[in-house]
């Protein structure tokens, strides 16, 4: 049984996300979102300015990912990004993690931890049993 073998793409967002940079960023990440079941993490650690266009772009990316049965998660948001996400009530729409690594790991963490450990231990003996 394979837990998850699809790639997780982690993309760092630019420092200033305004209408222009958001458009460029969206153009840049669209290939990652248009694959089957995309798994994308946006790292917001460097964001110092995020405006409404930036938030709209994030929502659009999330919607694109959901359309293809994938997900978009956010990681290490800077205080500036956090305040704007909170202000625009969008922080509750995203899964937000402290680090990119945690966010990337979370894509394979849909099973309860105990069950995952059990599966991992059983894996080598599985072919023999079959």
């Amino acid at each position, binding site marked *: 049984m394979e837990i998850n073998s699809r790639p997780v793409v*982690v*993309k760092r967002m630019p420092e200033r996300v305004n209408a222009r940079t958001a458009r460029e960023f969206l153009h840049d*990440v669209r290939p990652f979102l248009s694959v089957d079941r995309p798994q994308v*993490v946006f790292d917001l650690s460097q964001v110092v300015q995020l405006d409404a266009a930036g938030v709209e772009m994030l929502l659009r990316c999330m919607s694109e990912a959901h359309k293809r049965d994938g997900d978009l998660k956010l990681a290490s948001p800077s205080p500036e990004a956090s305040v*704007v996400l909170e*202000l625009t009530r969008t922080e509750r729409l995203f899964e937000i993690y402290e680090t990119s690594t945690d966010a990337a790991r979370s894509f394979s963490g849909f099973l309860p931890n105990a069950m995952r450990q059990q599966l991992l231990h059983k894996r080598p003996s599985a072919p023999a049993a079959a």
Partner: protein
Amino acid sequence: MRVMDIRGLVLVNSASVDFADHNQFSNFVPGLTDVAGKSLLERTAERLQKFGISPVAAVIEGPSYAGGIKPLGNVTQIAAPPERFWRAAEGAFNDLVQAGAELVVLVRLGAYAEIDFENMVQFHLDRHCRVSRATQNGQMMEVFCISASRRNDAASLFRSRLTHCRSDCPEFESFGYLNPLADPVDLRQLAIDILTLKTETAPAGEQIRPGVWAAPRAQIEKGARVLAPAFIGSYARVRSGAVITRCSSIEHHAQVDCGTVIENASLLSYSYIGAALELAHSVAGFSCIWNLRRDCVVRISDSKLLRHSAASSGNRLLSSTAELVTYLPKQFWRGIFRPSPSPSPDLNNALRQTSPSLGAASGYRAPACDSQAANEFPTNFVVARTHGNQ
């Protein structure tokens, strides 16, 4: 029975507070900022007058204040440039003495204190003090009683910027409300304390429902909800669908657009907050948000979210007219000249490029898969890995 002539002198300058630590708020003066409808200067002047200390003069530092200086009826306001502030304060003291004052109560705004001035003056007279000073919980406050005949003592006090007096300065212990107003958390706490009536001073305006105060000409549109305790300032506008709750304070000329929730927050004068937003645990104004939970200040450059309008009504009228006039041409321009969406690069090409939106700011110029840059990891791609056990 002879009535003693006691006059008040209030000093308002920014040097006594830590707000200036935040660069965005270098022109922010807490003493002049409205909290629940009145500035601290106004509240202090009212308190002095309540105890019969009148007239009151105020020396205000700086040529301009972004929040606008309201004219106060019974307070003579003297603006002084920062370099001449203390000289102007000494001059104002001398003017009060010339005008016949026998005793001057000097208050420097920084902390907000509700002192029993009657007891303080009595203490000063009983001890035959030249200068006496208020303290609370062992902390020195910048509130003094100065005998008018002791001009040299007063001069030494002003010249040392209230740090030193040449004669003995007996301490009067105060037990009233005290807010240090050292940071935005204190400013927010003051609004909460005023709205929950923990202070002797009350919110401005009329109590339209229990716990809800509205100043004259406040507009609360139909469909907006204001939950007690809350304050809506004069000419402030709360639009339909907005919710104001948990000790929130909307100061004069502020505007809350449709569907926005203001929870445990203060919206400072002349600020506009956009539609369908949520401002919680914050102080917002001057195009910035102080988030009290995260303890950070964020400048909001997007005027759709938060903006500060001009204090002058003429400028406000001009800017709104300009906005109205340019609205249709802007829409035409956008419709005609909007760039057509460029074709998306395929996945392989995208993996070979750095983000154009990062530009030179990323510090990385070479394409990711160049032979020369093969050993470098592009800054915009942090991780691209397969999960599972690989």
